[in-house]
């Protein structure tokens, strides 16, 4: 018994040292088979190389054909629209075709970067998305960890279901709930605080700009916590139980197991999700901010997308709106690469 466990541990350590991800046996073999193709290719001549490619392609023609629809799909819906970026350098009027417009160079970008309001909305966007990112990753992980430690299956399942149900509630409804709860006119939160004696008079939570980011983050947490933890729970379920047995034998307690087995076990999943979320830092949508906000807190509630809507599309300044869109996309791509780069440096693994 002891010997098998020890061997299990050793192989794992080896795996980590060489940096091969912890994959099932079959897949790893598949990976090994693919490898010679790419590694040997440079040795052969150029002609040889291309002919080899075509032989291989012919052999795998069904696989290629099966992937073709998806490639076309992505091309049509993700690459063709990029053509529209041209409008950012024009004074676009929908009457004429895109090539038949007045070109204005970088004018729209200059105006964008000179507008003070743009920096305010950028600050709000980044602040709210960063807060959302931190809270939206730590709490669900902790929640999943605790759920995972539970023994009673029935209780565990019901807690999980109850906690992810709010995910399916529309933001319109959530915004209504939140503003009712925080209302000064019989709102539950104010009544509770008054009863506890924390405050003397009802606080106008929704009218305080400095509280707005927190309110958005907390309502987002309430709505998405259970949902976000599902994927971590799934990742935890995939961890080899032998590891836990081995550490029990080695005398590790619950917290040690969580720290040394469960957390490292979900690291890859966590990092993939985290890096993808970083890519969405600037484009967090405007639904929650739009629905929870009001004129009094507009200095804290307005986000980039709302700004693009108001000063771009609503005023028929399509070019200006596109310029904001381009800024969004470029920043997102940069953020993803930076995050991935840092992760690669630290762990010698790459996600994308």
């Amino acid at each position, binding site marked *: 018994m002891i010997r098998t466990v020890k061997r299990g541990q050793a192989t794992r350590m080896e795996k980590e040292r060489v940096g091969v991800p912890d994959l099932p046996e079959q897949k790893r073999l598949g990976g090994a088979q693919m490898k010679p193709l790419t590694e040997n290719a440079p040795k052969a001549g150029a002609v040889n190389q291309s002919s080899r490619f075509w032989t291989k392609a012919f052999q795998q023609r069904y696989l290629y054909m099966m992937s073709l629809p998806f490639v076309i799909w992505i091309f049509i819906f993700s690459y063709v629209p990029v053509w529209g970026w041209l409008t950012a350098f024009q004074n676009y009027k*929908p009457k004429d075709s895109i090539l038949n417009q007045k070109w204005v160079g970088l004018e729209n970008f200059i105006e964008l970067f000179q507008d003070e309001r743009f920096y305010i909305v950028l600050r709000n966007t980044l602040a709210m998305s960063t807060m959302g990112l931190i809270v939206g990753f730590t709490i669900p992980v902790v929640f999943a960890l605790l759920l995972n430690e539970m023994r009673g299956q029935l209780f565990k399942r019901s807690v999980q279901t109850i906690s992810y149900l709010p995910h399916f509630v529309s933001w*319109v409804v959530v915004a209504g709930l939140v*503003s009712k709860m925080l209302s*000064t006119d019989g709102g539950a939160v104010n009544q509770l605080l008054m009863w506890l004696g924390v405050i003397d008079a009802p606080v106008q939570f929704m009218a305080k700009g400095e509280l707005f980011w927190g309110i958005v983050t907390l309502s987002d947490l309430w709505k998405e916590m259970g949902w976000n933890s599902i994927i971590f729970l799934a990742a935890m379920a995939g961890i080899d139980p032998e590891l836990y047995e081995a550490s029990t034998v080695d005398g590790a307690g619950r917290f040690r197991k969580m720290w040394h087995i469960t957390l490292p076990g979900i690291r890859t999943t966590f990092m993939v999700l985290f890096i993808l979320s970083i890519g969405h830092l600037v484009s967090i949508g405007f639904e929650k901010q739009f629905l929870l906000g009001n*004129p009094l807190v*507009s200095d804290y509630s307005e986000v980039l997308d709302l700004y693009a809507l108001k000063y771009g599309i609503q*005023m028929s*300044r399509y070019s200006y709106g596109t310029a904001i869109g381009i800024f969004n996309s470029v920043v997102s791509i940069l953020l993803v690469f930076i995050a991935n780069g840092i992760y690669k440096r630290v762990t010698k693994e790459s996600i994308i």
Partner: protein
Amino acid sequence: MKRKMQTFLSLLLALVFVFVTACSGSNNEGTNTGSNNGTANEGESTEPMTIRLASGDNNANWDDMQSEVGKAIQEKTGITIKQEFPVGGSDADMFALMVASDDYPDLVMPKGNAGKLVDAGALVDLRPLIEEYGPNLKKVYGEYFNRLRWSEDDDAIYILPQAGVNQTYFEAGGGFQLQHQVLEAAGYPEIKTVQDYENAIKAYIEKNPKTADGQPTIGMSLNGGEWQILISVTNPAFYATGAPDDGEFYVDQETHEAIMHYQRPEEREYFRWLNHMNDIGLLDKESFVQKYDQYKAKIASGRVLGLIDQDWDYADAQNALKAEGKFGATYARFPVTLNESYQDHSFQGTGYLGGFGIGITKSAQDPVRLIKFLDYLASDEGQVLVNWGIEGKHYNVVDGKRVIPEDVQAMKSNDNNTFKKTTGIGNYLLSARYGDGVKDPSGNYYTTTFPEQIQTSYSEEDKKTLKAYGATTYKDLWPKDDAFPERKYGAAWTLPFETGSQANVIFQKTQDIMKKRIPEAILAKPEDFDKIYDAFLKDLEDAGVAKLNEEFTKMVKDRVALWSK
């Protein structure tokens, strides 16, 4: 391995077949409806035809042509209207997206977004169509027909305004509102200035801190959380200080110089009064945070003593109160001003304003048929149908006079939402029409709003209150229509900015500043009020309000020149 692959592939194939058959099924349907449309176009003008109409104003009581009037119109013209409303956004989004996607319905009622559609070349010039097929349209607009032209440089007609021509106002929908029970308790005092208004509320709330069902009463509430901040908070500032509604501007009647109306020193004093109301706890603290439905729910609970709003904005909530029989909690309206030296200019004449209306888009299947449809609605027969309903059902002719039966009138005034939805009366004011107070050849009014009719629509509470003030309608409390000279430019709020122009951008910025600063100033401590109001004016300066004023002055002067031709 191989067998696995085969099962997988066959599964995939099966899936593909399912999709293909499903798709071809819907394709068949598609071609069917397509051919139906085709025959409809070729056939006679009463062949059934379905048209799409995008409306910028939400109408919760739209009946989908299922009402009695809707069916009558359908029978007469063969046209079925499918109406679309802004979903989850404003009308501005709806039409902007329409332009961006280049996908238009047959008819549009774009409110303030007509400029966008015209700039995009989406609207059809109606002038030639009206000349040929629209005798009734031409007749209704009459002497004001030249006011329909789009601009100095473009004499096309893109929009048929829907406001009543030659309208006489018999009823005033604005002003400051007070519950009948408040007035009764105070013995119907004079309500002329904000001070009178404040005193009435104060006296009542001291005696009745809670309603009959135990909820705390609210002194006054404003609908300031959404776009109605303009209706409920900022427009009253110029009404109360003796200026007419020129949108966000104040136009000097002599020189036609325009400034943003917040820059008038008088209005600072109005906002100072609101600030004072907040300070003494009579203003609902949630006025600028609440959403429209919260506002309506509060009113419908009967605990808001006073409002500053327009009747159409609080009508839903008041209808709910009426349906529950709480007539004491419904509202009377008064032309309240800041002090005795001002007069409410709500009814300063404008002449006929083009303004918001309906247009035909370039995607319309059959513009000729549509203009004939609109022409029918503008005919004497059509106007009576949309305003009065069907003879024998919604009105009777007694001695040559149209009379609304009592049960119909009771439903109309006490349960207007259901009334609108089932009868369709009020849902089809789509085309040119005469306003209130204009009589048709039979000697009856075209609309159902005339002095006697308004009085029958009043509840007993309304009548009691009006009697106490020696008036027959609320309008009687306002200064008479001819008390002020007519504005040569109509009303400045109908002047559209060129889309995407610099003035348009500055205007948007001033609106954002206003929506933040005005609530801030009102909710501030009284000693901070001036500081914040000064900061507000400074923000406006920084945003380029001087340039905006200059631009707007030019627009007003152009309008005066165009209309006096």
